């Protein structure tokens, strides 16, 4: 018989469910993710560091884990909450079942939860702390409210040392703030010779690699928790080589160019929102893993162009520097998970590097 466990929320709410995965007691920020496919990509994305993920997709685990779909080596989510879970590893890529994977990585899961009610609750109450526990007594709630979640999230998930991901093409430096592997996969598909460097690498160190282009990666937490030095690095890099920034990287790019960052009342994790490309009025879809937004009022229009907007909540989804080949997107164009409607942004980046080379030679 499955073990009964509890999901308790900072506001005093308790949910009863059954355990799967690890039996660890954990605390994190509770958020919902409404992407319908790719539970594996979601759980392993470092953007969910210190987060308990509620899947609105009612049944996860229907397919086994695929070696080609991990978004990190050591996932750092704090829990998985779902209506129904399947412990199968039956598709043609069958290797590891969800239960086994979560056990391996010390991540607790809880199923049998009315996730739809829970989502309604979180939409109304906003993002808050939660724990997955064995007993939902007063002590557990006290523990929960006493827990202070770290703001050193990037330092905890980013690589401490540079490492290569060799290729024969453009020399690309990826600055790791909690990188999702989808970015590397897309660069590899385009034959890039990638070096991943730690988040606190200086612009001089980066330029020493003689890069054709630089990517600022995705990552967890608030961009405001990172030191000024990161912004200096971005300012210095953007004027020298083509720059592409994604997710947390996008927020940092905005910050470096004078914008302000605001937290969202309710984090948005999903790929259902229409995103508008302003220059063409085109609508497309991509995974968004967003807890913060760039304050529109703070944009210096002499420096930055707003390129993409979320049609549902109006948040900025993309920026571009007026004077340099540098752009950023809030959404995740690599489609791991979610639609690949804008995966060709990576082609644009490659093209930008080609243009720079052409201009330098000419």
């Amino acid at each position: 018989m499955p073990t009964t466990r509890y999901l308790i929320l900072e506001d005093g709410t308790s949910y009863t469910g059954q355990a799967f995965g690890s039996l660890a007691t954990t605390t994190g920020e509770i958020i919902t993710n409404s992407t319908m496919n790719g539970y594996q990509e979601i759980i392993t994305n470092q953007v969910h560091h210190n987060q308990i993920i509620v899947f609105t997709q009612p049944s996860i685990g229907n397919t086994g884990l695929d070696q080609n779909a991990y978004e990190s080596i050591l996932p750092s989510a704090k829990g998985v909450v779902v209506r129904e879970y399947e412990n199968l590893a039956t598709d043609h890529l069958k290797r590891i079942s969800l239960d086994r994977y979560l056990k391996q990585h010390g991540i607790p899961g809880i199923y049998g939860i009315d996730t739809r009610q829970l989502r309604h609750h979180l939409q109304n109450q906003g993002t808050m702390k939660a724990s997955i526990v064995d007993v939902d007594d007063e002590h557990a709630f006290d523990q929960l409210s006493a827990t202070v979640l770290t703001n050193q999230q990037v330092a905890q998930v980013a690589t401490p040392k540079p490492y290569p991901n060799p290729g024969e093409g453009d020399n690309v430096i990826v600055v790791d703030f909690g990188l999702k592997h989808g970015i590397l996969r897309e660069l590899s598909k385009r034959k890039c010779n990638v070096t991943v460097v730690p988040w606190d690498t200086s612009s001089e160190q980066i330029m020493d690699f003689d890069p054709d282009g630089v990517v600022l990666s995705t990552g967890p937490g608030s961009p405001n928790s990172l030191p000024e030095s990161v912004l200096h690095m971005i300012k210095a890099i953007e004027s020298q080589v083509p720059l592409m920034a994604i997710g947390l990287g996008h927020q940092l790019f905005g910050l470096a160019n004078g914008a302000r960052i605001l937290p969202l009342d309710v984090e948005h994790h999903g790929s259902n929102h229409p995103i508008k490309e302003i220059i063409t009025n085109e609508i497309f879809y991509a995974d968004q893993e967003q807890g913060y937004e760039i304050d529109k009022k703070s944009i210096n229009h002499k420096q930055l162009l707003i390129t993409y907007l979320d049609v549902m909540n109006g948040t900025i989804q993309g920026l571009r520097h007026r004077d340099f080949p540098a752009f950023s997107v809030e959404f995740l164009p690599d489609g791991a998970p979610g639609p690949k409607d804008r995966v060709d942004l990576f082609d644009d980046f490659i093209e930008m590097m080609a243009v720079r080379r052409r201009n330098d030679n000419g």
Partner: protein
Amino acid sequence: MGKVVLDQMAMQRALTRITYEIIEKNKGVDDLVLIGIKTRGVYLAQRIASRLQQLENVSVPVGELDITNYRDDVEHDKPTETEVTITNSNPNISVKDKRVVIVDDVLYTGRTVRAALSAIMDLGRPKMINLAVLVDRGHRELPIRADFVGKNIPSSQKEKISVLVSEIDGKDAVEINK
């Protein structure tokens, strides 16, 4: 129908990127004039202009240039000044002291562009002339180089590269026919 090398999406994105590069290179859109080379270059110029409008809320003038009379590889009498026309819905279009961007669909031998340059220079002296092409297919016969390229498509001289635009061809695509 030939092999599609740029589909609708890819073509849109190439034009989008060119637009951003134009802003970047010109430090904005002040004094900008787009001159499309007939026929398809005009539609591409209009697309770039509509993008600039979306992004900057500025209406950049678009001129049309028919360079048939200027081609040095076509037999003809040397045209007189009056035959050179840049047509535009805005009759006051002028290239004098402007930053001109010539827009064409395919850059091949370079003769079309050379002709366009002559035609524009005949009209007045721009501050600067840049060239934007959707496709650069190589095989240049003149020392001409595009500043903004949508896509480099290496091709053999036997192949025919067609840029299709929805306004006249019913769809957007770049196709190669053997």
